[in-house]
């Protein structure tokens, strides 16, 4: 394949599949983005639940640390 072949193929491709690079954005997408941000529920991963469970188990096993932790705030 040389540059000439490549250019010829590229030109033919462009005639078969019109380039899309000049296609304009169909309006401002921010309102749709906002709706999507509002719609998406907060999801918790299994890791979050595991962490919360470990913390709860820790407090049950060692209740004396609770005042110490509260003191840090």
């Amino acid at each position, binding site marked *: 394949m040389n540059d000439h072949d490549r250019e010829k193929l590229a030109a033919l*491709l462009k*005639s078969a*599949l*019109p380039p*899309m*690079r000049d296609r304009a954005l169909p309006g401002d*997408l921010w309102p749709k*983005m906002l709706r999507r*941000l509002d719609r998406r529920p907060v999801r918790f991963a299994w890791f979050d639940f595991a962490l919360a469970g470990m913390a709860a188990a820790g407090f049950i096993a060692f209740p004396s640390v609770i005042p110490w932790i509260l003191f840090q705030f």
Partner: protein
Amino acid sequence: MELLERFAGGEIEAFETLFQSHQADVYRWVVCLVRDPAAAEDLTLEAFWRIYRAHARFDPARCFGAWARRIATNLAMEHLRKAGRAVMVGEEMLEAQPCPPAPDSAVLADTRAALRRAFASLPVKLEAVAALVLLEQQPYTEVASALGISVEAVKSREFRAVRLLRKELKEMGVEL
């Protein structure tokens, strides 16, 4: 505080500013890849949704535009893989952007149809490079950055795409 730092901190106003300034670029890039305006719009929104979710991982020293384009490219490639052949190869696309008539239009019409079929048969990785480099004339460096590969790898994929296209066309009885 800088805009990118505020975004990395999760500030929605900073995200909005970045969204407004980059949505057109991301959409244009995605539509070049998937060649379907409706899908490109959805993918642009999904890309920004992922960008927003990943704000904490964003390094404000990096270029936001390149990062956004990379995320959008990954999504578009995923879409192409899932859709099988999401490239719009139908006649309606040609009618939407008509090509200038040629004197030997009957022969050209056959060649174009063969090319569209050959293009649709490319593996997604090669199709993406063919669409961006051959069709859309995007610079190698930008394509490489968006795909997360080297410029040499882009050129290699382009070479393989051209070779495959020529082979497919030959099998369809079209000589270039």
